[in-house]
């Protein structure tokens, strides 16, 4: 008891003594007490304690964010998996032709509005830029339609003149088909295209999200490809009811296909975003825990060093009185 009160008083007296060189003393006490020159007492442990408190708070926050992301992921995962059934019939009918040669390409990049979700937005942007380069050439033009703030921020830096539309605040209300279809309608009305390439992160599992590209062709390109045979060439063998021509049906199908594919892409990207955020927050809480361990060791060493110093002084003072 007495030792503790003595120690507390010693610390209060120590403060004005070291105020002349506070910064070097702090640094030395945090790095290694042995490096501090003799005669200077170690800094009070207040600084280390403050740091420990803030690191602990950060750890709590990131743990909470991880749990929030996990619950949001659970909610949206079933919807994303169910929405895969929307575009599968289209691929069965029309085939998927990523290597089609089109004059006007429009790259629809899907990203998140919020950050702290790992590297998924950067991979989407990287792939978009690569595809832009791939589809560039004489008489060809490639434009961007950007969904989400994060991709917009990255693409503004060097592809400003190629951006056609940018859309944000998509996830204010829970995602539904009506919203995405209105968005698809806007894109179709405002942008001329031969091929639409949608780039998003497909959700395979909580730890794996792969960037994927889906291609939707305009009806004219479908007609052109149908002449060269393959899956699209078989379209003529289908019987058309209802008095519509093949061209009209292709146009309806193309619009609906774009809307379905975009809906699935937006849902999968949202899933990937929550999954990536979960793993990012998990690793950040783990790092905070390690940092806390290291700081605790430093704190204990500093505390013990100051106790030892007090003891030495008292004992040497006592022995000086006797001797």
């Amino acid at each position, binding site marked *: 008891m007495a030792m503790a009160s003595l120690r507390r008083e010693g610390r209060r007296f120590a403060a004005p003594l070291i105020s002349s060189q506070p910064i070097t003393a702090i640094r030395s006490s945090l790095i290694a007490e042995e490096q501090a020159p003799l005669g200077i007492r170690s800094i009070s442990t207040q600084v280390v304690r403050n740091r420990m408190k803030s690191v602990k708070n950060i750890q709590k926050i990131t743990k909470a964010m991880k749990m929030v992301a996990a619950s949001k992921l659970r909610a949206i995962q079933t919807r994303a998996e169910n929405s895969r059934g929307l575009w599968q019939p289209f691929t069965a009918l029309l085939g998927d032709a990523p290597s089609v040669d089109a004059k006007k390409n429009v790259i629809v990049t899907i990203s998140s509005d919020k950050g702290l979700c790992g590297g998924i937005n950067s991979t989407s942007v990287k792939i978009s830029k690569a595809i832009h380069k791939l589809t560039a050439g004489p008489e060809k033009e490639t434009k961007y339609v950007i969904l989400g703030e994060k991709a917009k921020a990255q693409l503004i830096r060097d592809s*400003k003149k190629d951006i056609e539309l940018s859309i944000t605040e998509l996830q204010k209300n829970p995602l539904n088909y009506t919203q995405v279809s209105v968005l698809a309608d806007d894109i179709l009305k405002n942008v001329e295209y031969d091929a639409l390439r949608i780039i998003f992160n497909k959700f395979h599992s909580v730890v794996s999200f792969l960037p994927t590209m889906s291609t939707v062709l305009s009806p004219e390109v479908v007609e052109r490809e149908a002449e060269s045979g393959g899956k699209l060439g078989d379209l003529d063998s289908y019987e058309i009811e209802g008095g519509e021509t093949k061209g009209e049906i292709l146009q309806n199908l193309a619009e609906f296909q774009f809307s379905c594919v975009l809906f699935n892409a937006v849902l999968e990207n949202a899933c990937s975003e929550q999954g990536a955020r979960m793993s990012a927050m998990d690793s950040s809480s783990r790092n905070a825990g390690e940092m806390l361990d290291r700081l605790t060791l430093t704190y204990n060493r500093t505390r013990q060093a100051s106790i030892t110093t007090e003891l030495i002084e008292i004992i040497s003072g006592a022995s000086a009185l006797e001797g």
Partner: protein
Amino acid sequence: MASNAAVPFWRAAGMTYITYSNICANLVRNCLKEPYKTEALTREKVHFAVSKWVDSKPQKSSMIRIFLDLGFLRCAIRSDTEEE
């Protein structure tokens, strides 16, 4: 039934297939009974902010589509006049 050569009425009015199917879906949702009706109508909320880019600059136009559920048909007509 429309004649064989003419386009369907909605295409002639300037709607895409997407708009047409959304309006039909809205009509179907309105035929439901409570409580399923309110549940289904929550799935119709639309909100996003779109901005067109001209000359590397986003237009500061107020093209925010904030129409909620039932007003879909009214809003589809309104947005066409806004674009002029």
